[in-house]
């Protein structure tokens, strides 16, 4: 089926839907109620609607044809899946807020790596994440450049909605929709055109439950999830459903979830993880940390063996705090020499 601006008015709705099932939701989102008119061409459908009705619905057939052709083109390329796989991103230095060149030559981050970003508030951590999301080409205040697979990136990474380079876990993790956990994940899976939907949804809910302290069911309304449960669901959902190869975490507060498992889940889906953080545990869980000062990357530090040992101590402490919290909440007394579990 040849779809372009010339052919589209004469194509039969039924044939279009048969060839491109995703058009069903496209029609519905555009308020085109084709049901009962499947046998008609689009042009006949619009003619039969009548001028007055078209004006009422604010439908302009020519604009609709243009949008439809563009949408089909985007979806075909999205479903094509032989898209470029992101193996690495590379940050090339720019300058700090005073215009002084940054103190590194080149930083390559590979699939499966975790990088943390540390520095005082206002130093430029979010700007660095922004540079990566925008695939900066010396056209942001920092003058940094970002390469993908060691090459100048395809401009599509900036603008595509279906193929975004970056998924962000937000600082605030509220849900605003009024849906159950299952419906919520289903909606997301639908918009991603996932095929084995049931299986994927069940997997996400299971993984989220592994991350969260307290369990929740698929029927729980998302708005009644606790902070920890919401974060867990969001991380599992992003890890499994987002096609984006890079996950940015901007100062998320991590109470109530198992941080190590969360990061492992993201890594098991072959993501690149960058996180701006003030949390020493997260900072040390990374393979490397980027130190930002006055808007520029001043150092890139590899986590040392000694630091990893310190990390284990911190994690023990963290577990202890968690277990104390659990006990206090359930009305128990705390005992000094108690072993942790």
């Amino acid at each position, binding site marked *: 089926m040849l779809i372009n601006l010339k052919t589209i008015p004469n194509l039969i709705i039924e044939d279009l839907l048969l060839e491109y099932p995703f058009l069903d939701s496209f029609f519905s989102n*555009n308020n085109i109620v084709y049901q009962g008119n499947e046998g008609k061409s689009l042009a006949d459908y619009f003619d039969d609607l009548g001028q007055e009705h078209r004006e009422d619905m604010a439908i*302009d057939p020519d604009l609709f044809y243009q949008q439809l052709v563009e949408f089909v083109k985007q979806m075909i390329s999205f479903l094509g899946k032989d898209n470029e796989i992101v193996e690495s991103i590379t940050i090339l230095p720019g300058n700090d807020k005073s215009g002084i060149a940054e103190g590194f030559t080149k930083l390559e981050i590979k699939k499966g790596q975790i990088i943390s970003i540390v520095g005082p508030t206002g130093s430029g951590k*979010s700007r660095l994440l922004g540079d990566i999301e*925008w695939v900066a080409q010396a056209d942001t205040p920092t003058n940094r450049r970002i390469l993908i697979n060691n090459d100048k990136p395809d401009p599509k990474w900036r603008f595509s909605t279906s193929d975004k380079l970056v998924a962000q876990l937000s600082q605030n993790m509220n849900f605003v*929709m009024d849906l159950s956990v299952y419906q919520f994940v289903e*909606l*997301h899976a639908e918009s991603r055109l996932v095929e084995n939907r049931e299986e994927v949804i069940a997997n996400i809910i299971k993984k989220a439950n592994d991350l969260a302290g307290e369990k929740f069911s698929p029927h729980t309304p998302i708005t009644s999830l606790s902070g920890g449960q919401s974060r867990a669901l969001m991380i599992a959902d992003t890890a499994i459903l987002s096609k984006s190869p890079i996950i940015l975490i901007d100062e998320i507060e991590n109470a109530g979830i198992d941080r190590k498992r969360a990061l492992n889940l993201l890594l098991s889906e072959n993501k690149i993880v960058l996180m701006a953080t003030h949390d020493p545990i997260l900072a040390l869980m990374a393979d490397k940390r980027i130190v930002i000062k006055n808007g520029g990357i001043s150092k890139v530090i590899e986590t040392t063996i000694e630091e990893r040992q310190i990390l284990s101590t911190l994690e023990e402490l963290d577990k202890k705090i968690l277990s104390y919290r659990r006990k206090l909440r359930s009305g128990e007394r705390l005992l000094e020499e108690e072993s942790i579990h």
Partner: protein
Amino acid sequence: MNLITVSGPPSSGKTSVILKTIESLKKRGLSVAVAKFDCLYTDDDVLYKNAGVPVKKGLSGALCPDHYFVSNVEEVTQWGYKSGVDVLISESAGLCNRCSPYIKGIKAICVIDNLSGINTPKKIGPMLKSADIVVITKGDIVSQAEREVFASRVNSVNPKATIMHINGLTGQGSFELSTLIYDEKDNIDTLKGKELRFPMPSALCSYCLGETRIGESYQMGNIRKINLED
């Protein structure tokens, strides 16, 4: 002069986005003025003034705000042109969702927010469907999944638009927007003869003319009745 029209539902983040974008434009040495159109009330002019941005405001009062916009946009353009600014931005709230004050050949930006619900893209007509750039705000208070679902709904009613996510509070993304809206080669000195992208609804009924009483016998002109049959 570049002219950019920004529209979007009330409180979607238009002013926040425009102010942050102006900061970036100014850093590049460009001068910017704003014309704000609203219906009954607005404080936005104060916000712009405080940011050092020359601003004019117009309140449509008892008139249809979008008709008011079209009737005044040429005058406002002349004001901007004579003040010698590089960029004039108009901000107007889309109040009835049916209208779109966009003009052919003039960059059109629609600002909507993630909080408005995933069916919103379906409900907003030409204001969203015929925009060149759609800015989605308030992503900081929803989940990644909601952002993706919302953006994909926007994309399905306007696949040709450039869709951008901007945080109106921190300005994240506004620098990027500023690079898309200014074009050195664009030079608008008048809108005379230009056309709207979409016709506005034709309406003239007794209530347009000040009638306040309810009941069939007071209704004249363009009247349509709700269908209550099953």
